[in-house]
């Protein structure tokens, strides 16, 4: 009965741990070279592709 919650809880735990670890590890790139992580993770296409292209075109 509790098993699905345990499994999901475990995977959520792994994910959040890996996410936090990854965020704390500094990137070998300068900040401005990366597209903003939040907007990219929230929406692939609009934030990171088309919006940028539109900005370039203007």
């Amino acid at each position, binding site marked *: 009965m509790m098993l699905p919650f345990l499994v999901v809880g475990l995977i*959520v735990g792994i*994910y*959040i741990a890996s*996410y*936090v670890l990854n*965020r704390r590890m500094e990137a070998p790139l300068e900040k401005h070279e990366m597209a903003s992580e*939040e*907007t990219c*993770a*929230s*929406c*692939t*296409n*609009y*934030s990171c592709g*088309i919006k940028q292209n539109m900005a370039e075109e203007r």
Partner: protein
Amino acid sequence: MVQSTAKKKKAGNTYLTNFVKGFIRENPIFVFLLGMCPALAVTDSLETGLGMGLLVVFVLTLSNIVVSLIKNLIPDEIRIPSYIVIIATFVTIVEMLTEAFAPPLYESLGIFIPLIVVNCLIMGRATSFASKNTVLMSAIDGLGMALGFTVALMLIGFSREILATGAIGYGIYLPLPVEGSLFNLSYALFNMEVFVGPAGGFLVIGIWLAVFNAIGQSKQRKKEEDRRRWIEKKKREAAERKRKKAMESAGGSA
């Protein structure tokens, strides 16, 4: 008293504009190009488009409400992971409900029900709107945006279905004016099956986007024209005034 009603009216207006914006001005598909995968894949008929849209309405409204409720509880560092968990939970619920209560829809949508999780629209609204606004506002925003998404899916589904089969949705055919009379026309003569296939999705969305672009551009042009005319008018008036003044001063001196 008067002030408070005015305030209320204004608040009502912001609710309304917040609700309506998803339909045309900030339409997820035609303006922001969000959620293109379902927009292409499940719009071969009006019916499946509507079904997909309603599932998104459910998920987006509820996830917006929950995200907005817990926006102060979750630490900033794990915001995106928690949004993914919330959205995935609601999608699982929706998946189970559809399987139980609408098996034909579940069959026809196939893998695109679990793929609602990665629909850019839902994650985008959670990060850009629900995480910054009140619960009621977020619920209205989610409902409006998702309904705008639904309307767009229905428009695409309707165009594809009518081009491919001649039906106006749900397999209903309008009677052709000359059917069975002199020429014996039938829908089978006009069917363009390409529109029900994968290529049709790309073509129909491309054409609709171009149509909306053209409308937007002509509006823009009209606005610019109006502005230019207004500026010219003002300039002429100013010149007139200057001339009058000059005439007057010349007359005075003479």
